């Protein structure tokens, strides 16, 4: 193995490949920042360019672009509440409120450092254990995935402020319902399409996220002008571009980063899960472990709520290279594109890759580490400038947000129907928000709904229609157990508090 790592180091550190990492990271960050263009489009743009390269250089460039795009994606989530990639939705939960409170620079810096740490810890785990982890990747079956997605859904509880529980649940159900539109994932039957060709593929994540997050947020700013101008004044008064993080805050996020990167990495290793699930799980887990006081901050600008998903997201992206490189199984759309590229180079990813093409295998892993370092160096000095974007006058910023979110969606589909649908969703979202419904559970339900259904139906087919797998398969049962614990934990605490209050009442 050490021989392989040396080969990899030598390959990754050639001037040509170093340049590839830098160019890839830079291009990726830029593409990723535009709402609408995620890692898949970024990598797809790179494929024709990489045809002439040798496989190692091509993969290094693509890995750089991949990282850059994920990194850039968190910027638009934090600054304008426009998560262009599902993996950065959870970043917007707390990152955007932080930016609204005038801490945009700090939020971006925490995101950058969390991404770096998650990616780096992931790369080290990959380096040490990739071949051994192939077994882990295959340990999950459909029923386990289904349970894992349900556990992810418990992250909704972060949006259940007192008196809001019912509204958060209703929003989740609306999200789940929207996810059923389109071609059913197992039988191929069309549902709720009303015979329209435009609805056959269902509602795209990007469209719904842009409509309910970015568009509705920008339009709400117009509706609630006074409140917003107050917030804007506060934001400009506070030092928007400052990246200063206090020592207590550093102490607070270090354990978060540690936990979330390990969680994220292992979820990423599972071909049926990926970065989005990883970020939700990390967000939910962090909130479960938080103290009652800290819990209230979640969804309103908690640094732990920002660091956890951002770390997990990047660690999971690194983890997803385990099934790709060791089994030839792509866990996400992005790694599927990379698999296609590798095969067209004549490289067959699989258990023999690190024997047959050790240069490709190790160079990719080492360039991931390198890519993370370069991204950090590239981005930290830019943060104060990027953050100042929010200091733009509202009458310029809001039209810009509207423009970029609409164009972002249109450029993916070239379908004017999508624009109409987006406007409809934005309008509905505004009404719901005026009635105090949180939007995050809706998008959470939408993202997880598809996956829960897909895995549940598969599990049912495999067990010939019996639901016994829910308790008979140990892994599934354990994950369901965790879900129940997560849901019951606050109840236990409430009961204990009441009892405590009663006891102290008796004493006094």
């Amino acid at each position: 193995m050490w021989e392989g790592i040396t080969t990899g180091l030598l390959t990754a550190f050639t001037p040509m490949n170093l340049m590839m990492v830098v160019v890839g990271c830079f291009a990726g960050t830029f593409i990723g920042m535009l709402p609408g263009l995620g890692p898949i489009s970024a990598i797809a743009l790179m494929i024709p360019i990489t045809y002439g390269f040798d496989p190692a250089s091509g993969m290094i460039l693509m890995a750089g672009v991949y990282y850059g795009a994920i990194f850039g994606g968190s910027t638009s989530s934090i600054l304008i509440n426009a998560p262009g990639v599902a993996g950065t939705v959870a970043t917007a939960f707390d990152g955007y409120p932080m930016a609204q409170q005038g801490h945009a620079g700090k939020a971006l810096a925490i995101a950058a450092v969390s991404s770096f740490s998650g990616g780096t810890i992931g790369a080290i785990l990959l380096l040490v254990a990739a071949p051994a982890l192939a077994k882990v990747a295959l340990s999950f079956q459909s029923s386990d995935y289904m349970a894992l997605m349900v556990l992810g859904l418990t992250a909704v509880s972060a949006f259940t402020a007192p008196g809001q529980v019912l509204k958060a649940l209703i929003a989740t159900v609306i999200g789940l319902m929207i996810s059923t539109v389109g071609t059913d994932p197992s039988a191929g039957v069309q549902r709720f399409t009303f015979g329209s060709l435009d609805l056959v593929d269902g509602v795209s994540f990007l469209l719904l996220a842009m409509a309910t997050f970015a568009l509705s947020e920008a339009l709400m700013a117009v509706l609630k002008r006074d409140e917003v101008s107050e917030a804007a004044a506060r934001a400009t008064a506070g030092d928007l571009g400052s990246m200063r993080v206090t020592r207590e805050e550093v102490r607070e996020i270090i354990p978060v980063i540690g936990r979330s990167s390990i969680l994220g990495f292992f979820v990423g290793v599972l071909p049926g899960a990926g970065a989005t699930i990883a970020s939700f799980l990390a967000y939910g887990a962090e909130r479960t472990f938080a103290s009652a006081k800290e819990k209230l901050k979640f969804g309103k600008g908690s640094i732990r709520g920002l660091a956890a998903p951002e770390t997990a997201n990047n660690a999971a992206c690194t983890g997803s290279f385990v099934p790709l490189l060791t089994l030839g199984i792509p866990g996400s759309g992005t790694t599927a594109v990379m698999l296609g590229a590798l095969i067209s180079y004549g490289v067959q990813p699989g258990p023999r890759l690190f024997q047959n093409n050790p240069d490709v295998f190790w160079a990719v892993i080492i360039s991931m580490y390198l890519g993370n370092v370069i991204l950090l160096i590239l981005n930290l000095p830019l943060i104060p400038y990027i953050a100042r974007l929010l200091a733009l006058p509202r009458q310029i910023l809001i039209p810009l947000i509207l423009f970029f979110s609409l164009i972002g969606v249109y450029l993916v589909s070239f379908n004017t129907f999508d624009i109409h649908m987006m406007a409809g969703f934005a309008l509905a979202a505004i009404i719901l928000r005026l009635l105090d419904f949180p939007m995050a559970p809706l998008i959470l339900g939408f993202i997880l709904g598809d996956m829960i259904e897909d895995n549940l139906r598969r599990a049912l087919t495999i067990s010939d229609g019996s639901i016994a797998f829910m308790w008979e398969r140990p892994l599934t049962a354990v994950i369901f157990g965790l879900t129940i614990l997560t849901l019951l934990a606050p109840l236990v605490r409430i009961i204990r508090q009441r009892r405590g209050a009663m006891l102290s009442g008796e004493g006094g």
Partner: protein
Amino acid sequence: MNSNINRTTRRAILGGASGLAALMLIGGSVSAAEIKEIHFLIPGGAGGGWDGTARGAGMVLSKEGLIEGASYENMSGAGGGKAIGYLIETAERQQGTLMVNSTPIVVRSLTKVFPFSFRDLTPIARVIGDYQAIAVRPDSDIKSWGDVVDRFKKDPRSVKFAGGSVRGDLDHLVPAMAMKAMGHDARKVAYVPYDAGGKALAGLLSGETELLTTGFGEAIGPHRDGQIRIIAVSSDRRIDGIPTLKEQGADVEFANWRGFFAAPGISGEQAKAYAGLLKKMQETGTWEDLRAKNGWQNLYLPGDQFAAFLAKEEKEIGDLMRELGFLK
């Protein structure tokens, strides 16, 4: 992408004008030499099978100097229906466009995913094909197709097939055809759908199912690596020594073809010119390299023969799907 479309439009107008001029000058004989550029319309996203075929063909054609340049446009949606609809609607300015497609155009027009069929387009040529493979884990007790059938006879639910498409689509149809050919009830085939071939492979390897049904090109890499063992292939003769379904008693021969279509209403000469160009492409060394790398089989079939093949396939698949209860 936008500029791409604009360029196409402009080129189509120019092409149309010069075509008209040529018609007037030499009385309507358009030769293959006059196709200078091709715009490839890809009904799916980057990195998929359609994408690889179209970009591969464009690359070979340009590299070998058969055309001067190729441009590409990915338009995914409605299982390919969006691109077909677009090609039909804008037919008069798509004279220079070729759309790639494959067996799903037949399946999905039958299941009414989209309201079009190959008859609404001009079939140019079938170019390549990928046979279907049935595979097991290397340590499986199932050693041959015969073992599958034996188990199926005892309990159809004991042999489940993992595949990368929805129920009633290709990966499901091949094991169903094979069981039907041996006189068993095709409706009893237990098929477990995954959202991609790779996920189906993961399903097999995780022990969720006993069998995998997928494209041969996708299965041959893992087979050579010893991850899986292919027990049968749907070709007419053995590939790499792997026995065919036919020799194991299931009289089935099936290839998921890929080919090219042009807009409706292009002239017969031009369609012939495109078909000729694709034939020349397949005779080059560059193509041979690409084909071997991707595990494709050459299955060239031009114009009218292609259309006849499509009609035959539509009937066969339609009959089977009706029998399976996917069509009424």
